[in-house]
């Protein structure tokens, strides 16, 4: 059940308003504190020696030269680290059949991708450690590498991990209805082959960790750029043989994460192991080449898709065959199978149809491991679905908007279960599409497109509807056996001066988590948001919880904060009632003061109540509860996931001589339920869209046939720059989830989910009259020219 946040005139009405972020002022002054900004007494630096081959046996390591470098203290091999750190296996029980071999923090006898750590050099300065690393002499015997996804399962292809039997990591097939019969009888069938480019998140702050082990206290502290401090606590404890209670993870400012910083990385765990061995603080900061070769990659998919429609364009069935290559290991502990699994879950997601078949095949290869990056699997599923829908519309001569109107789940259809067996509580596809069409003035845009055409200018309009998975329950990881919390907590306390402190287990990486929490707590207690200080990112001082990933911070962490704040409000009013000799329910708290609920008349500032409780408790009735600290937790229970929906549109201009695509405009209407802070939500959508636009036009990690990464620098791997990006028009429909009082669902990934598909459809709308089509991302000038048939070699 939702609370009535719709009335803007209610007291303390901060939920739903744009309020400033408490941490923004500090960041614009350069006063952020990222891990690399920290210096500790006796701190040393670790640099990793990394395998230059895609697949090689390590036959010898000679550290003599490195140890002779001034400042170098120690050199560690895989065996040295394995003595204090157990290997891990990136599988989850609910992903049936997923297999992956044990992975060590530093490779022991064999390295499986270019960039896998094979030794660690510790020195008093980063420069000395780098000098030492260059002098570690490693003997390799190169092994046959597996680099091609589509031949990975062929008999002739070597098996990457012989003990696994084959190169198949995971396969999942979903069958609903009689797909073959439907396709055989359908009026129109369209099929296409899609490709999404292997790319990565490119956080401007590289992965960073600083770990200290204090044997005197028996405690390890890791200052870590992470999205999930409690998950890291568990993993460090488990693999370094420490009690969980003796590991503290502190997450200060984080310079971008987007899913990159939610995984276990071998070099980071090795850093903690070295801290434990050396009993002093050890810092590891990835350099940019290491970021490209060792941050998780994502989206390396090839998909064959078919759609069957009747003569009116009604969708009858989808048939999807997805392939993805995940590198040499399934990433721990969230695995590398979720992305393919999501493609199976999400294809066809917005549409009301019956027959559905989808399969994902996940294979090993000698490349950097892939795993969850912002909007996991969504951009792939949306690209395939929306690409096929547009192709079917074109074949039937239907407008892209019209075919969607005929097939989107009706806005009054909920609750409903999709053919992929997803449960939707309440979505707004039609209202969102209607709003989008009005915002972009679709008819005028079509007129502009026609006018441009008459001038020889090729423009196209693309639309992409989508669903987004948010607010994951324990069904995401917990049921698979991972100690990754789906629950979050918030402790809210009132200090003697009447100010409020809220400690939350969800974390801040720039989304505005702290602002969102401050306004929820302010409304829940009845104070100004500026009177609320927020603590996040410390396993020792916040409640236990999951952190910030899968668009869960506001929906789950926010609800816990709301409940805790209301509990504190109740506790304050109980004391106030005793002090003012009246029933607590005749009182309210507004703008930091106790007031009469009926007329808002001031009765007592919270600072006065605080003074009495903390310093003159003797004047209160004995036995009166005065617990001005309250904690509440929340985990979704009614639905495994709170799905959101939205629709994006792109307007592009294609230069048919050069193949260059210019983004003219971009629109998004999305429904994340209750909007807590409109500005922050809009900026999440915009930032997400631009990451999707990068995937559509620029971003791809190129490997040669030997598994060498060819573009491991920011000069070679292109991400969107200011000059190429369009302004974006964002709007919302609000369908709050009824599962929580707050009603918030997630918004962090919607932009990324649909942007690339909208661009693809826009380019194809432009190329179709010329007989051209593109389906392999990124849509570089070369690929556009090939799609037009102007390049054929």
């Amino acid at each position: 059940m939702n609370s009535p946040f719709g009335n803007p005139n209610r007291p303390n009405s901060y939920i739903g308003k744009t309020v400033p972020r408490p941490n923004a002022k500090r960041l614009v002054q350069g006063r952020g504190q990222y891990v690399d900004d920290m210096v500790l007494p006796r701190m040393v630096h670790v640099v990793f020696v990394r395998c230059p081959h895609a697949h090689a046996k390590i036959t010898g390591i000679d550290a003599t030269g490195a140890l002779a470098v001034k400042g170098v203290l120690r050199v560690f091999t895989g065996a040295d680290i394995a003595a204090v750190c157990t290997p891990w296996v990136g599988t989850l029980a609910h992903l049936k059949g997923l297999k992956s071999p044990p992975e060590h923090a530093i490779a022991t006898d064999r390295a499986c991708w270019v960039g896998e750590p094979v030794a660690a050099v510790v020195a008093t300065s980063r420069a000395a450690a780098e000098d030492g690393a260059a002098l570690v002499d490693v003997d390799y015997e190169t092994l046959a590498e597996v680099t091609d996804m589509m031949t990975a399962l062929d008999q002739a292809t070597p098996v990457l991990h012989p003990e696994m039997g084959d190169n198949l990591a995971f396969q999942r097939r979903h069958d609903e209805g009689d797909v073959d019969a439907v396709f055989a009888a359908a009026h129109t069938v369209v099929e296409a082959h899609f490709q999404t480019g292997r790319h990565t998140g490119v956080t401007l702050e590289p992965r960073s960790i600083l770990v200290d082990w204090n044997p005197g206290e028996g405690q390890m502290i890791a200052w870590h750029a992470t999205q999930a401090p409690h998950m890291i606590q568990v993993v460090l404890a488990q693999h370094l043989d420490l009690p969980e209670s003796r590991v503290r993870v502190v997450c200060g400012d984080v310079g971008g994460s987007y899913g990159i910083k939610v995984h276990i990385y071998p070099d980071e765990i090795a850093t903690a192991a070295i801290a434990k061995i050396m009993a002093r603080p050890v810092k590891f900061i990835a350099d940019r080449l290491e970021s490209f070769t060792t941050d998780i990659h994502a989206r390396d998919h090839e998909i064959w898709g078919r759609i069957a429609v009747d003569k009116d364009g009604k969708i009858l069935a989808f048939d999807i065959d997805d392939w993805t290559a995940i590198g040499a290991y399934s990433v721990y502990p969230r695995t590398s199978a979720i992305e393919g699994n999501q493609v199976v879950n999400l294809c066809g997601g917005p549409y009301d149809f019956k027959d559905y078949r989808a399969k994902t095949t996940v294979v090993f290869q000698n490349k950097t491991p892939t795993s969850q990056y912002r909007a996991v699997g969504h951009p792939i599923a949306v690209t395939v679905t929306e690409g096929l829908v547009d192709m079917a519309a074109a074949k039937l001569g239907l407008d892209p908007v019209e075919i969607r109107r005929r097939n989107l789940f009706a806005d009054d259809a909920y609750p409903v279960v999709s053919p992929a067996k997803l449960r939707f509580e309440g979505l707004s596809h039609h209202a969102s599409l209607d709003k989008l069409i009005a915002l972009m003035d679709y008819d005028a845009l079509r007129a502009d497109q026609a006018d441009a055409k008459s001038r020889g200018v090729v423009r196209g309009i693309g639309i992409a509807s989508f669903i987004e998975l948010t607010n994951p329950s324990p069904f995401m990881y917990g049921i698979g056996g991972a100690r990754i919390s789906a629950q979050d907590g918030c402790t809210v306390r009132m200090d003697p001066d009447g100010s409020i402190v809220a400690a939350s287990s969800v974390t801040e990486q720039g989304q505005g988590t702290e602002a969102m929490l401050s306004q929820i707590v302010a409304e829940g207690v009845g104070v100004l948001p500026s009177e609320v200080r927020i603590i996040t990112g410390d396993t020792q001082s916040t409640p236990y919880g999951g952190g910030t990933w899968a668009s869960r911070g506001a929906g789950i962490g926010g609800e816990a904060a709301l409940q805790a704040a209301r509990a504190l409000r109740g506790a304050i009013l109980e004391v106030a009632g005793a002090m003012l000799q009246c029933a607590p329910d005749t009182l309210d708290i507004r703008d930091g003061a106790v007031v009469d609920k009926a007329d808002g008349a001031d009765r007592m500032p919270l600072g006065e109540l605080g003074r009495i409780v903390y310093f003159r408790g003797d004047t209160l009735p004995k036995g009166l509860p005065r617990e001005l600290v309250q904690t509440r937790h929340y985990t979704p229970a009614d639905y495994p996931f709170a799905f959101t929906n939205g629709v994006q549109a792109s307007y592009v201009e294609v230069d048919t001589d050069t193949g260059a695509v210019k983004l003219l405009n971009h629109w998004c209407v999305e429904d994340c339920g209750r909007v807590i802070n409109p500005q922050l939500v809009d900026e999440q959508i915009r930032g997400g869209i631009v990451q999707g636009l990068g995937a559509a036009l620029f971003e791809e990690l190129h490997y040669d046939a030997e598994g060498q990464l060819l573009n491991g620098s920011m000069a070679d791997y292109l991400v969107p720059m200011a000059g190429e990006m369009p302004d974006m028009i964002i709007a919302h429909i609000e369908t709050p989830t009824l599962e929580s009082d707050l009603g918030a669902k997630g918004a962090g990934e919607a932009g990324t989910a649909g942007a690339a598909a909208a661009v693809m459809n826009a380019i194809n709308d432009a190329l179709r009259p010329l007989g051209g089509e593109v389906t392999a991302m990124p849509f570089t000038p070369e690929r556009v020219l090939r799609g037009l048939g102007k390049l054929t070699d």
Partner: protein
Amino acid sequence: MTATFTDRIDIALTVNGEEVEARVPAGRHLVDFLRLDLGLTGAHASCEHGVCGACTVRVDGQAVRGCLMLAAQADGADVWTIEGLSDNGSVSDLQAAFVARNALQCGFCTPGMLVAAADLLDAGGAPDRATIREHLSGNYCRCTGYEAIVDAIESVARARTDGGAA
């Protein structure tokens, strides 16, 4: 690393209006000198290739990549980082606009972005959005999608021009 890079060089410069004398390895980059030797951690090392702009600082009035300049080259220079520009108030309107428009998320690119923006606005006039976008193309932001940053800079440009005319 050859001995040349580890040779020490005496430098004297002004950083944020304060005189600094130091003995630095010849291979020390300006951004590392500022961060490691002076504790000025506002400028960030990110791509270390001169591409992303997170290390941008002001040297003798110019916006400069701290990862492409050696500390030794700054001998005699007048260097300003986000810390000094915050203290002297010269970018306070830009900072306020960035906060108001939420033109930053993680904040890692922001100090460099502000120096680049100040560089553009100090040239005078009220640049249009395309010019602002073009000027910022040496400064990557992975969080915002740039629009809020362009909005913030555009609003300050207008305010400065209006203020100048009044």
